[in-house]
């Protein structure tokens, strides 16, 4: 028997939180399928399949009950986030390896739900980009720029049977971030490069609409109080500030802030990845520091680092700093006077 309170709020559970996150991902996923072809459904299904397989395996090995933990929806969120971060139409085992790192290494080796220091989806992504960089840069081109977009059957064929019949050149293209990075390093001028069709209206053809849909989903999460304003605001604010600073310093090498908002994983990161409560800072001031620094690091990696996008690594680096940030940003308790408390 437990003590008071004897009532709990209705309709709140880990499962309902996770399902709301998934629901908020739907607009972005639809936009993804609309602009880049139906391949995303294949990668979503594959990631989901491997997620549940590894989750069940890990739970069985750890002698944990399957029903509550398979039903909490957390592994489904991890699967969807990783699927939306990976190129579609890659071989099936790429998704398997990604989910293996996400679920087995990042989540269950740390103690399962609620215990992971790092964002599982980003650990999966990082493991893949350092192990298989070639596959990780082969993104399908936007449908209106590609000479050929595989339909669902072709997509299944590509994923499971390999890239035999169709040449990847027919349906893939360098992403805007990759294009800019490669061409600027080859001596090109950023403004001129960004006139190419792949950069679209707002910075990235197709991707910009997907990003706007992620923004819409994120605003829904904010509205339903699944996430707070601190992390997205601080992250997007820091991305804009850092990008503006670099752009003002050297417009020939650095893209404008709008491009940084629309390209790559910025919006997904701001509303869905950095906001993962388990691996994020949990104090109000801590969230601002955590997400703000992540925003800076994202743009710095894009501008100077070895990888075209910096979202995953900025998230992982800041995950590492969370225990320290939280310990030193404890808010003042009601009625306590003087400075905010400093933790040992």
């Amino acid at each position, binding site marked *: 028997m437990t003590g008071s*309170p004897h009532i*709990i709020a209705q309709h*709140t559970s880990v499962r309902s*939180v996770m399902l709301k996150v998934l629901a908020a991902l739907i607009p972005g996923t639809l936009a993804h399928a609309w602009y880049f072809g139906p391949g995303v459904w294949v990668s979503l299904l594959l990631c989901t399949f491997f997620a549940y397989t590894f989750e069940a395996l890990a739970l069985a090995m750890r002698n944990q009950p399957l029903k509550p933990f398979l039903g909490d929806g957390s592994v489904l969120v991890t699967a969807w986030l990783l699927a939306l971060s990976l190129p579609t139409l890659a071989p099936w085992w790429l998704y398997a390896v990604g989910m293996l790192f996400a679920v087995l290494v990042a989540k269950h080796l740390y103690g399962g739900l609620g215990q992971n220091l790092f964002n599982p989806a980003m650990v999966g992504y990082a493991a893949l980009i350092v192990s298989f960089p070639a596959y990780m840069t082969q993104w399908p081109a936007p449908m209106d720029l590609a000479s050929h977009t595989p339909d669902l059957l072709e997509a299944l064929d590509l994923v499971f049977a390999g890239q035999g019949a169709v040449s990847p050149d027919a349906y893939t293209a360098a992403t805007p971030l990759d294009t800019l990075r490669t061409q600027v390093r080859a001596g090109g001028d950023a403004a001129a490069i960004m006139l190419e069709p792949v950069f679209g209206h707002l910075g990235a053809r197709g991707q910009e609409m997907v990003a706007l849909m992620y923004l819409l989903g994120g605003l829904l999460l904010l509205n339903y109080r699944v996430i707070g304003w601190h992390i997205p605001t601080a992250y997007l604010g820091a991305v804009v500030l850092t990008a503006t600073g670099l752009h003002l310093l050297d417009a020939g090498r650095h893209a404008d802030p709008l491009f940084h908002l629309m390209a790559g994983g910025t919006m997904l990161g701001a509303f869905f990845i950095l906001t993962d409560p388990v691996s994020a800072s949990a104090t109000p001031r801590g969230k601002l520091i955590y997400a703000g620094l992540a925003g800076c690091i994202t743009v710095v990696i894009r501008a100077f680092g070895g990888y075209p996008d910096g979202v995953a690594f900025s998230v992982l680096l800041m995950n590492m700093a969370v225990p320290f940030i939280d310990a030193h940003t*404890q808010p003042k308790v*009601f*009625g306590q006077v003087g400075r905010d408390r400093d933790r040992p």
Partner: protein
Amino acid sequence: MRTGNPPAAGARGRRLYDFPGGVHPEGHKAVSTGRPIAAMPLLPRYVVALRQHIGEPARAVVQIGERVLRGQLIGRPEGYVSVGVHAPTSGRVVAVEPRPVPHPSGLMDLCVVIDADGEDRAVDLAPLDWHRMDPSALRNRLREMGLAGLGGAVFPSFIKLNPGAKRQIPILILNGAECEPWITCDDMLMRERASEILLGAHVMRHMLGAEQVLVGIEDNKPEALACMAEAAAGSDVEVVGVPTVYPGGGGKQLTYTLTGRKTPSKGLTTDVGVQVFNVGTAYSLYRAVYLGEPLVSRVVTVTGHVGSPRNLEVRLGSPISDVIRAAGGELPGATGEVIGGPMMGFDLHDTSAPITKAVNCVLVRNAEHFPPKPAPMPCIRCGECARACPAALQPYELYWYARHRDFGKTQSYSLFDCIECGCCSYVCPSHIPLVDYYRFAKSEIWAREREKQAADLARERHEFRIFRLEREKREKAEKLAKKASERMDSGAVATDDPEAARKKALLAAAIEKAKQAKAGIRPKNVDDLPADKQREIAAIEARRQQLASTAEPSDTRSPTPDS
């Protein structure tokens, strides 16, 4: 949502302040406000607990078989933090023994059992001349009359009514917020007996020397607000509607809402010049002062899964089973009783336990409104608890450290600022019984404190014992030495003590011998020897003398031949 402290517009334009956190559980208030307060019919037997207040329990002053009258003192206050306990009706004391009482522990406590005689005769009740009475005498009278806070904490009122020598209490707040769901006893009291409550508040104000009286009532009680405002019309008592948010009726929360004054952590509202009393306490003060009646009854909400949920004026000591019966009895499907509200109340273990001053509500549970709690999931650090916490704590951190028994850390995360209001457990999506973890941590820390104090005491005692033994030894040695030297020096001691004289003679002889030895004369065992031996020795001595006179002066026994 409720963040920061933006002021909201209150009644009469009073600026209100928004305390952190809070939740909005369903009120279920209308369930029990449909019927007016009714007095419980007289019962054949009352069980009056001697511990009905915070502090020391009262001491029984009646014997088994003794006849008592309503309002007669049956338990005298014992110690400072204590108040009197009185007979709820006239009758005969049949037992003074441990009985089940409404307490979370389910333990039994000492009660006076009274069989009513049905006549309900009272002691002589004389109103108090509070205006002219010496404040201290008035407080003592209220202490004896058993007045304690009826909001649930049952702290002795006379202590709270003592402003102290230096302290200024400019603001008196009457707490009619009643933020717990289901409970309506204050609501009904304010609707029906508003002017009496204000008369009580008037006495409180007089005793505290307060300049301002504020009545805080949550805006989900428009009838109570209207009745109190009507009763206060023409006076400077300000009746203020405050936003309905649990736990807005907490003393520190209501103080902040109404005045913007933040009670310091570990402090009292009086530290910021505010004293808070429940409206029910003000009403009981009115009865004590204007009618001369000690605290023998209170209004109790009986609600939930009962036949006719309502508020009853219940004599203290009425068995709860009788009180439930008076409200229509438990309906089929009842799953137990909660004493107090659903957020902070506790499970009743035995319905034969009596109503005490602390019981404001008997809530009968059923499966519909009190479904079994789902199994807890791991904490995902979502921070809902921190947003709901009215003390602005980080409950997930406290949970983490309490779970891992790192009690030092729980204290550095301000565990003792937790008021156990239950908001964190209420909102937790992982359904973790967070408050249970904090109670556990607090009791462990208290237990360790006690152990440490006991160990410190034992260590101090041990150290003192060692010190004492050593001191005694030293003193004894000093005394002996002193005595000995006194005996040596003064002959007077020796003359009147033949034993000492003999010892002294022996000592003197020994000293003399030693002196001779030092002078080189070696005493020998030469007395009583046979003649031949004596001659032999004499011969040897003579040879030795001869040798000594001829030899070089290098004898080790006489390094200086001149001496």
